[in-house]
C-alpha cells in the first residue's frame, strides 16, 4: 500500500476517527472513505501488510523451528493466555496479543480467556470465517423470555445491510431456506462429503426440527468482479488461512476493506497508536478526538474529528469508554445508565460428541476444506426451549477420515504399523456445540483501581462466568450430540462437556459481546439501535459491545452489518444537519 497513508503526528482535523482496524473498524473505514469522508483509522498495533507480513504462509511444517509448535519459554512468558486458543501455533503466534505486555485481572473465583490480536487487521486475520445471519427470533429472545433488555432493532432492520456486506465479503454457502437461519447472498458452497450427506439424511429423519447444512464461510469459492478488483482470487483450499492468505481468498481487513478504503485516497492510518481515552467537551456534549500513547516509545499525541467510531473490539472499546472520565461522566463516558461494562457475554463451546463411522472406505477427498458443516439452533423460541434451561445452541459438525495424528496413539509396532500410518484410517464424525450465554448484569468488566499496563492504562478486571443455565445447556448439547450420532449409525459414540476446565472459561469462544448494549431506554442501555451513544450524539460503538443478547451464531457478520448501518445513519444525519 502507498506509504503516505501512514501518519503519525498530524495537525489536521479529520472528518472521522475510527479506533481499531479489525473486522468492524475495517468496514467502517471502507464505508466512510467511499462516502468521501476524510478518515483516520487508529490502530494500537503494528502495521501488517497484505502478502508481505505473513511469515507463516505456505511454509512447510518441517521448515518451522519446532514443526509448528511454539517454543515453551516464549509461550509461557508472552502468550500464557493466547496459547489456549486452538489457532495459536508457530505459524500464527505473531498475530496474537502479548500477554506479558497486556496483563489483565480476573475476580476471585472467575476466569476469563481474553484472546487478542493487536495489529493492523485485528482478529480479522485470525478468525475462522464462519458467517451466519442472526435470525428474527434472536432479536426477540430477550423480550420473549425476559432476560436482558429488548433489542431496539429487529431482523428486518438488518436484512439489507446483511445483503450489502455479504456481497462485498463473499460468503460461500448453500441457500437452505431455513427460518432459524436466514440465507445470505451466497457464492457456491463447499462440498458436503458423502458420510456427511448420509448423517444429514439420518439426523433430519430422526429429528425433523433439526437441519444439518454446509457451513457458511467468508471464502471466495467463485470471486466476483468486485472481489477481483481488490486483488482477491479464488480459495485454493489450503486451510492455512490464519497464517495470512496472499490469494486474499478469505475476508480480512487486509484483503478486502483496507484496499477498498485506500483506493479512495480518503484514508489515513495511525498505527502503533494506543488510544488511552476519548477527549470529551462538556460544553458541547461532543467527543472531540482521542488521546493516544505511542505503542513503541510511549510518547503522547492526539487526533481530532467530528465523530468517533469505536471499533476496538467489545472489550477494547469498553475499556476506552470506562477510562474516559469527566465531571459529567465519572464512571466512564456515555455511561449515565451505569450498564457500561455489564452484561458481558461470550458463546459457550463446551460440549462435544464424536463417534466412529463404519464403511466409506472408498471415499476420500482432495484439498483441505476450510469449513465444516453446521446445525443451526433449533431452540430459538420459548416454545422450543428444552427442559431445564433457556435458549439454545448450534453445532459445528464434520465427518473426517483419521490419519497418523489419530492413529499414532493406537497399538502397533513395526513395519505394518508404519505402513498403516501412511494410509487414511477409519471415518469418524463429531458435533461441537456453540451455546448462547444469557445476558446477566453481574457478568461484567471494570477497570482496576491501581494496576496499569505499560501504557499507563488501567488493567481490566473480568468478573464473568458461565452460570447454571449455560452448564445445563452444555450437558444437554453433549447428550443430543450423542443421540444424533447414534441415529446416524455411528459406533463408539462419546459425549463430553468441558465447562469445568479453567482454560475453557468465557473468552475462549472469542465472541465477546454486550458491554455497551443497545436499547430504546437511555436509562438501561448505552447505545441506541444505530450503535450511537444515547448520551453523546457523535460517538458510535458498532462492534460487539452493542449486542443486547449473544444469539448462537458467530457474530462478526452481524458486526459488519451494524457497522455499515451506523455509518449510513451518521452520514445521513450529518447531511441533514442533525449531528
Amino acid at each position, binding site marked *: 500500500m502507498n506509504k503516505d497513508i501512514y501518519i503519525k503526528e498530524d495537525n489536521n482535523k479529520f472528518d472521522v476517527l475510527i479506533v481499531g482496524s479489525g473486522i468492524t473498524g475495517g468496514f467502517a473505514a471502507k464505508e466512510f472513505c467511499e462516502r468521501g469522508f476524510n478518515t483516520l483509522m487508529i490502530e494500537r498495533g503494528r502495521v501488517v501488510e497484505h502478502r508481505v507480513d505473513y511469515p507463516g504462509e505456505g511454509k512447510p511444517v518441517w521448515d*518451522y523451528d519446532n514443526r509448528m509448535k511454539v517454543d515453551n519459554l516464549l509461550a509461557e512468558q508472552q502468550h500464557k493466555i493466547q496459547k489456549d486458543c486452538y489457532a495459536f501455533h508457530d505459524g500464527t503466534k505473531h498475530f496474537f496479543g*502479548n500477554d506479558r505486555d497486556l496483563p489483565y485481572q480476573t475476580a476471585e473465583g472467575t476466569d476469563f480467556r481474553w484472546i487478542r490480536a493487536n495489529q493492523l487487521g485485528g482478529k480479522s486475520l485470525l478468525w475462522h470465517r464462519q458467517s451466519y445471519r442472526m435470525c428474527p427470533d434472536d432479536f426477540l429472545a430477550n423480550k420473549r423470555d425476559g432476560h436482558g433488555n429488548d433489542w431496539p432493532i429487529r431482523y428486518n432492520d438488518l436484512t439489507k445491510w446483511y445483503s450489502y456486506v455479504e456481497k462485498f465479503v463473499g460468503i460461500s454457502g448453500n441457500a437452505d431456506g431455513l427460518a432459524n437461519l436466514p440465507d445470505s447472498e451466497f457464492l457456491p458452497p463447499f462440498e458436503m462429503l458423502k458420510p456427511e450427506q448420509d448423517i444429514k439424511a439420518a439426523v433430519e429423519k430422526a429429528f425433523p426440527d433439526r437441519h444439518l447444512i454446509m457451513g457458511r464461510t467468508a471464502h471466495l469459492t467463485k470471486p466476483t468482479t468486485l472481489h477481483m478488483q481488490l486483488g482477491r482470487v479464488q480459495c*485454493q483450499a489450503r486451510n*492455512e488461512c490464519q497464517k495470512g492468505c496472499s490469494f486474499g481468498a478469505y475476508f480480512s481487513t487486509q484483503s478486502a476493506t483496507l484496499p477498498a478504503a485506500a483506493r479512495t485516497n480518503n484514508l489515513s492510518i495511525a498505527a502503533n497508536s494506543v488510544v488511552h481515552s476519548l477527549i470529551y467537551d462538556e460544553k458541547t456534549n461532543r467527543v472531540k478526538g482521542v488521546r493516544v500513547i505511542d505503542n513503541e516509545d510511549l510518547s503522547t499525541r492526539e487526533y481530532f474529528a467530528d465523530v468517533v467510531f469505536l471499533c476496538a473490539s467489545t472489550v477494547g472499546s469498553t475499556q476506552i469508554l470506562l477510562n474516559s472520565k469527566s465531571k459529567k461522566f465519572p464512571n466512564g463516558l456515555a455511561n449515565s445508565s451505569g450498564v457500561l461494562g455489564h452484561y458481558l457475554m461470550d458463546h459457550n463451546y463446551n460440549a462435544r460428541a464424536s463417534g466412529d463411522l463404519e464403511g466409506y472406505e472408498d471415499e476420500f*477427498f482432495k484439498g*483441505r476444506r476450510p469449513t465444516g458443516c453446521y446445525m443451526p439452533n433449533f431452540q430459538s423460541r420459548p416454545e422450543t426451549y428444552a427442559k431445564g434451561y433457556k435458549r439454545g445452541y448450534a453445532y459445528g459438525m464434520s465427518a473426517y477420515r483419521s490419519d*497418523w495424528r489419530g492413529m499414532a496413539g493406537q497399538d502397533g509396532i513395526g513395519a505394518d504399523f508404519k505402513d498403516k500410518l*501412511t494410509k487414511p484410517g477409519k471415518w469418524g464424525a463429531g458435533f461441537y456445540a456453540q451455546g448462547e450465554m444469557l445476558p446477566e448484569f453481574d457478568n461484567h468488566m471494570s477497570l482496576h483501581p491501581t494496576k496499569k499496563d505499560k501504557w499507563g492504562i488501567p488493567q481490566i478486571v473480568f468478573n464473568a462466568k458461565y452460570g447454571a443455565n449455560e452448564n445445563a445447556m452444555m450437558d444437554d448439547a453433549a447428550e443430543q450430540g450423542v443421540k444424533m450420532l447414534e441415529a446416524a449409525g455411528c459406533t463408539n459414540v462419546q459425549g463430553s462437556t468441558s465447562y469445568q476446565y479453567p482454560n475453557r472459561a468465557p473468552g475462549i469462544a472469542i465472541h465477546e459481546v454486550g458491554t455497551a448494549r443497545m436499547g430504546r431506554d437511555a436509562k438501561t442501555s448505552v447505545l441506541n439501535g444505530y450503535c450511537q451513544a444515547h448520551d453523546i450524539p457523535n460517538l458510535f460503538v458498532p462492534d460487539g459491545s452493542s449486542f443486547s443478547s449473544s444469539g448462537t451464531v458467530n457474530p462478526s457478520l452481524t458486526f459488519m452489518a451494524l457497522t455499515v448501518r451506523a455509518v449510513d445513519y451518521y452520514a445521513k444525519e450529518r447531511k441533514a444537519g442533525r449531528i
Partner: protein
Amino acid sequence: MTQNTISNDNRRAFLQRLGGVLGAATVASLTAGTHLNVAFAYSPQTDSASKAGKVFSLTQMKILASVADTILPRTNTPGAFDLDCHGFVDHQLATCFSKEATKPYLSAVNLFDESFTTLAPDARQKALMDLEAGKGFDENQQNDFRALKSLIVFGYFTSEYGASKALRYDAVPGGFKSIPYKPGDKGWGNFAYY
C-alpha cells in the same frame, strides 16, 4: 496540534498520570525485553545416537534411538532412525515442553536399559508389543510409552521425507472435492493444525 480543544489543565493532568508510569522505568527498559533466548531451530543430525542430548543422556539417547527404530523401522522407506526422530524428540522436549511435561517421556525411555539396544529386531518388536498389551507393565507405563510413541510418529510425519514422500504433500490444492479412494493410496501430508 492546531485543533487542540482540550484545555491545558486537562492535558497537564493527563500527562502527569502518564508520568507516573514513565517515571517508574525508562522507556527503553519498558519496550525492551521482547527478545528472548529462543532455542535454536531443530535440524536433522546424523549422530544424535552417539552423544548426549539436551534432555537425554548418551545412554538414554541410544535407547530412544533403538525404540524409535523399532516402532518405525527401515523398510523400503527410511525408518525413524534414518530420519533422526530420536534427535527430534530430544530437541522438541527441550524447546516446546515444560520440565513437568517432559516427565512421561523420560519415564518411558527409562523403562528400558541399554540391553534393549542389543536385542535382535524381532525381540525388540515383541518387547514393545508386550508393553502396549500391558504384559508386565502397568497403565501409567503404558500411557508414558504411548506419549513417547506419538511424539516419535509426529517427528516422522512432520519431517520433510515423512510429510512429502511417505505421504502426499499438496501445498496448493486449488479447491476441495471428494475423490474415490483406491486401496494403497497414501494419505495427505499437510494439515492446517497438528
